[in-house]
């Protein structure tokens, strides 16, 4: 998004997004785009980790899902008041912060592969917990809940999601170009060098997971409010893979790529769901994205080279093992 062309493009997209509700009466379309905005926030939070810090999490749905569950449980049990929504938002974000720090402290000290395994384990733990605490969460079937009158208008909620996307995107952009954000990118480029320069890599990584966790929780709250329903699918590892695929396809390490990825994946998914009525083969839409994703990981020189330039410094035999060992 550099240069004048980038800003012009961004402006056009923004204007289109603002006027969309005037162009269509279809509630389905509005809902679809609302979902795109919310998932874009989720994918951006993933990009903070993957694209800007160079750490891979396979349990990111944990934050998204708990956000949705927290707002759902709160509104269901305490009634659909606006105050409860705000309280839920705060609780969800604090919860995301605490869990992110906890997992980070456990796993970020060890080599990078451990973070992936441990986040996967914690993600599954939360998923199973939501599945088994049936009395509390409704198990697999989930539960629906009522939301405040003010948020019930689909057009209004569309603008709320768009506003959230713009505000969160702007804040994350500011964060990433701050000195702290620059250090994160230095860690991504060359962790040992960042350490040698004197930065406490562990602390910066921990901070990065905290920002990503809180942002994902916020996305989860919005998702819960939009669906007015929560089930275990929000905590499933597939949700994490959604964010991963969106980030990679959109271009990791670009932040805005997450928005592109979210739009692309959500739209194609929607399209294939329609086709699934014709043939069940279209239920396997993930194959298509999986293959595209693999090809991008293997060959795409654009976003990936930018995000993983350190690959070129390490290319060759797995000598990384020695250097990465404890």
């Amino acid at each position: 998004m550099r240069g004048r062309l980038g800003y012009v493009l961004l402006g056009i997209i923004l204007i289109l997004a603002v006027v969309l509700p005037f162009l269509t009466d279809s509630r389905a379309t509005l809902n679809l785009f609302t979902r795109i905005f919310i998932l874009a926030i989720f994918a951006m939070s993933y990009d903070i980790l993957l694209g800007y810090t160079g750490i891979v999490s396979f349990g990111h749905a944990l934050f998204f899902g708990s956000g949705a569950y927290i707002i759902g449980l709160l509104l269901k049990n305490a009634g659909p008041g606006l105050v409860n929504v705000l309280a839920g938002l705060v609780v969800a974000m604090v919860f995301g912060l605490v869990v992110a720090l906890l997992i980070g402290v456990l796993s970020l000290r060890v080599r990078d592969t451990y973070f992936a395994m441990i986040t996967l384990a914690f993600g599954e733990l939360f998923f199973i917990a939501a599945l088994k605490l049936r009395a509390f969460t409704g198990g697999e079937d989930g539960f629906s809940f009522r939301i405040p009158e003010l948020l019930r208008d689909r057009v209004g909620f569309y603008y709320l999601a768009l506003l959230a996307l713009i505000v969160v995107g702007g804040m994350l952009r500011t964060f990433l170009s701050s000195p702290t954000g620059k250090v994160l990118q230095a860690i991504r480029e060359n962790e040992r060098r960042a350490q040698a320069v004197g930065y406490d890599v562990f602390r910066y990584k921990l901070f990065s997971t905290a920002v990503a966790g809180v942002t994902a929780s916020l996305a989860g709250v919005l998702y819960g409010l939009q669906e007015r329903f929560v089930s275990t699918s929000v905590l499933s590892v597939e949700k994490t893979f959604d964010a991963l695929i969106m980030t990679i396809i959109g271009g990791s390490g670009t932040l805005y790529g997450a928005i592109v990825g979210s739009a692309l994946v959500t739209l194609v998914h929607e399209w294939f769901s329609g086709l699934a009525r014709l043939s069940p083969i279209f239920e396997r839409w993930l194959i298509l994205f999986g293959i595209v994703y693999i090809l991008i990981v293997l060959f795409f020189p654009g976003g990936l080279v930018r995000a993983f330039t350190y690959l070129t410094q390490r290319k060759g035999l797995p000598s990384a093992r020695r250097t990465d060992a404890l």
Partner: protein
Amino acid sequence: MDTFVNLLTNGIATGMAIFLLAVGLSIVFGLMSVLNFAHGAVFMWGAYVGAWVFGYTGSFALALISAILAGAIMGVVLERTTISKVYGNHILQMLLTVGLMLVLSELLKVLWGPNILPSPTPKFLEGSWDFGGIILIKYRLFTILVGAVVALGVYLLLTRTRLGIIVRAGVENPEMVQALGIDIKRVFTMVFALGSGLAALGGAMMGPLGGAISPAMGLDNQLLAFIVVVIGGLGSFVGSLVGALLVGLTGALVSWFVPEAALAVNVLLMAVILLLKPTGLFGGGSV
């Protein structure tokens, strides 16, 4: 007493099947520093191929052999076409193998459907033996036996053969091995094939153990295998064995008392070991 023996054999049998999955994961990591997230998918394919061949031919031996072959072939193809392209970059490896896992799982659903399928026990292993009042289920003992034989075989392979020496040396220092004139790329492919074959065997054994197979079993068991290698130490053969038995037993015992908490206790176990000894019980390079 009966319940206890029952839980014990169940735990050890499950542990053995997970060991078959974890040992390949661990050695591949030790040698190539690749953490293979597609490993569980190969395990699952082993379970499906095993059940499918068994259903067609009625021969359990043939089912196990075809599962191993299918796994080994998948391992070679994946390693040669994709994974070898990203050696040396942990992040790309993880991203890539997760993508492979996704595609392999979806492909499996295309072939066999997304629902749970039965995975029957062969006739000669049905039922149980009665040892003076202690009832032991035949198939569980069979799984334990196969697991023990394979564990011994892998141990001998690693300690007594030329390939084993190369692999162990490669775990210590890949550049040095290559400097000695050994084509380490071929060794990589062979180890990958071996690890994938063992994972597929583990899947084929696991199927009848639970009686059913589903597209969720890949990720579920992969998670257990991760917990195993974190507990035992990535790259350690003994660690995989001890970790797998520990995880299998914990799972069986805890799920008897509190079925909901089985995974939670295993994750907790992993967290405690990470805090106390981040390299795992047997971590540190030795096989």
